[in-house]
């Protein structure tokens, strides 16, 4: 593809902005481990929000969204609705995780569980995440290699190595400060490019009306219907698969680790300056991601009507990139390539820093050198970042095909441990033995159900939704007995966790014990205040706001509907459909209502939380200094 001098100028200018901006925060990152990995826990909500959006807009994401929308039309958008876990998670799991003050999901294990089981889980998750991040880096790097090959004809390794190395420079120097500042700048550039190129795609196809008319003339108008299922149980997109995806996404918000994105979001949750900022950061990040998907879908349908007969996925998956590289004039192509680099940088920097966090915090500091100085921990973080970079090259270049297993692994992981990931949050009796058993069982059962038994003809190859439910059910046959046949976690530990985190769900015995010890305040009897309480309460004390109430449940129900409205309403609006306008208006009203209901409570919780945060942190740090513990 010919690149003019103006194109190179714009690419260079974007590079300078996206690398120079993060590097500016070098001095902040070197202050402490907390700065290097959590930006000092002081970020306003819009920085974690932009980071959520940017991180999950990877180089391979446009290929994936293009693939599902090209193949399935608007119903394919439901694949991308998995981001809706943030709609519930923002008000449930994010709130609890923020209160735990754990740096990572691995560290959370020793807050939630106690004893050797918790330590084993922490080590297990840390090892898993270090390598998972390396794989993701290799995978996304390979996608960048393919895009550079498409645009310039460069060898694949050039696109894999050079952009990732540039990213590593500021990630290594400025840590999470660099990541979030970079994500903010890159997010603006990326969102602008996604909107612009998608609109260009629709205009090139003749406009929204022409796209619709062309789909009708092709006999493909079903592609405009997000509910065009192939039957309840039959076809390649049955309604039961849609329902399964909804359950995975929405109920997944009650748990932690129910989505691979959770591990990334956990870092953003802890980097927010207050609990309210953490909730809004996660919610807004998920919402912007769905806005992005809506623009992509409209552009890709434009691409479809221009080239409706591409049969192979490899041909149509690069559709959105082709819109940018082939339709934009000289000069703007450079801007577009700058945006592609922005998309790539944000994902690479996040996973470099996250993988280094798990190594530094959960393996090195916890198990190898608990008394390491802050300076040393920052340097270990930098070395780990560099090693992860090299590892990603290895997996990308030498074992390219192995990255394909990642999709398989992600699916299996989510199916087999999806329910335990919820139970660990909502059920006091679920213990470390049960959770560890679920991971171990998942290894064997998933292999049997998905691969070994079908290979030997014992079991037919099952559709995705059946695989999910079967893996979940078989896993439960292992982890439920493992939980119930072993002892519950130590009550002292559970009470400490309960008082700190205030979890939602079945925590009756622990709550009663916390009340008996005078560690929490008893609720005012319902009958004494029922007459005074408005249906939606908007004045809260901190102690009252700590309890789960009707307002939380309203938010939990309304929030996913708002997310669905964003995705479907905006897409249809962009395609010029009247229903899109009404859905979008209802979505905006729903969003305002949601804010009106939940914000007073989040504010009250945050006031209390901020006042106690310093003490919490001091206690937590002491817990993690093993040398100071006696006989525990």
């Amino acid at each position, binding site marked *: 593809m010919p690149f003019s001098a103006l194109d190179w100028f714009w690419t260079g200018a974007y590079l300078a902005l996206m690398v120079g901006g993060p590097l500016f925060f070098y001095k902040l990152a070197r202050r402490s481990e907390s700065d290097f990995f959590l930006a000092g826990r002081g970020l306003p909500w819009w920085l974690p929000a932009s980071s959520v959006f940017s991180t999950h807009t990877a180089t391979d994401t446009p290929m994936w969204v293009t693939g599902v929308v090209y193949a399935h039309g608007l119903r394919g958008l439901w694949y991308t609705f998995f981001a809706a876990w943030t709609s519930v998670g923002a008000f449930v799991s994010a709130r609890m995780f923020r209160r735990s003050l754990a740096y990572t999901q691995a560290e959370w294990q020793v807050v939630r569980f106690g004893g050797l089981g918790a*330590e084993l889980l*922490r080590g297990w998750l840390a090892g898993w995440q270090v390598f998972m991040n390396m*794989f993701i880096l290799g995978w996304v790097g390979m996608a960048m290699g393919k895009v550079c090959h498409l645009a310039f004809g460069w060898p694949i390794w050039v696109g894999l190595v050079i952009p990732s190395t540039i990213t590593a420079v500021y990630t290594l120097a400025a840590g999470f400060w660099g990541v979030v500042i970079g994500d903010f700048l890159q997010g603006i550039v990326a969102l602008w490019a996604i909107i612009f190129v998608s609109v260009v795609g629709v205009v090139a196809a003749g406009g929204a009306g022409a796209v619709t008319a062309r789909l009708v003339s092709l006999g493909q108008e079903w592609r405009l219907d997000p509910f065009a299922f192939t039957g309840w149980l039959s076809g390649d997109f049955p309604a039961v698969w849609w329902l399964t995806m909804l359950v995975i996404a929405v109920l997944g918000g009650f748990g932690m680790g129910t989505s691979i994105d959770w591990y990334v979001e956990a870092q953003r949750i802890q980097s927010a300056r207050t609990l309210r900022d953490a909730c809004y950061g996660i919610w807004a990040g998920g919402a912007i991601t769905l806005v992005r998907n809506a623009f992509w879908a409209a552009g890709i349908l434009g691409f479809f009507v221009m080239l409706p007969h591409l049969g192979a996925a490899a041909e149509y998956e690069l559709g959105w990139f082709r819109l940018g590289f082939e339709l934009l004039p000289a000069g703007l192509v450079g801007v577009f390539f700058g945006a592609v680099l922005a998309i790539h940088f944000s994902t690479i920097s996040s996973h470099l820093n996250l993988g280094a966090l798990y190594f530094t915090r959960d393996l090195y500091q916890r*198990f190898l050198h608990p008394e390491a100085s802050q300076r040393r921990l920052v340097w270990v973080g930098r070395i780990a970042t560099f090693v992860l970079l090299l590892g990603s090259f290895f997996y990308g270049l030498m074992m390219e095909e*192995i990255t394909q297993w990642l999709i398989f692994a992600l699916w299996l992981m989510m199916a087999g441990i999806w329910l335990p990931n919820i139970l660990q949050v909502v059920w006091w009796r679920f213990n470390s033995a049960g959770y560890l058993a679920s*991971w171990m069982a998942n290894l064997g059962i998933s292999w049997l159900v998905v691969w070994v038994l079908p*290979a030997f003809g014992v079991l037919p190859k099952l559709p995705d939704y059946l695989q999910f439910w079967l893996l979940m059910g078989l896993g439960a046959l292992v982890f439920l007995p493992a939980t119930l046949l072993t002892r519950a976690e130590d009550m002292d530990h559970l009470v400490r966790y309960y008082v700190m985190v205030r979890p939602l769900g079945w925590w009756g015995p622990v709550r009663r014990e916390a009340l008996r010890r005078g560690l929490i305040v008893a609720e005012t009897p319902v009958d004494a205040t029922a007459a005074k309480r408005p249906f939606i309460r908007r004045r809260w004390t901190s102690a009252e706001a700590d309890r789960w109430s009707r307002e939380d449940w309203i938010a939990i129900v309304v929030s996913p509907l708002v997310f669905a409205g964003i995705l479907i309403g905006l897409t249809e609006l962009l395609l010029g459909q009247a229903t899109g306008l009404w859905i979008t208006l209802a979505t905006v009203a729903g969003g305002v209502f949601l804010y009106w209901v939940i914000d007073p409570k989040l504010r009250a919780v945050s006031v209390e939380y901020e006042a106690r945060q310093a003490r919490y942190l001091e206690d937590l740090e002491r817990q993690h200094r093993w040398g100071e513990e*006696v006989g525990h």
Partner: protein
Amino acid sequence: MDRGLVTLIGMSIAYIASLLGMGFAYWAWRRRQRRSGKDKQP
């Protein structure tokens, strides 16, 4: 490379990494228990 073999290698590496992490955790736990025992000796 065969897809099954690729999957086998990839999954194995991930689980080996997790087991290594768990091994570290156990080793550190034992070390801590031993130190704790020594501290309690008169």
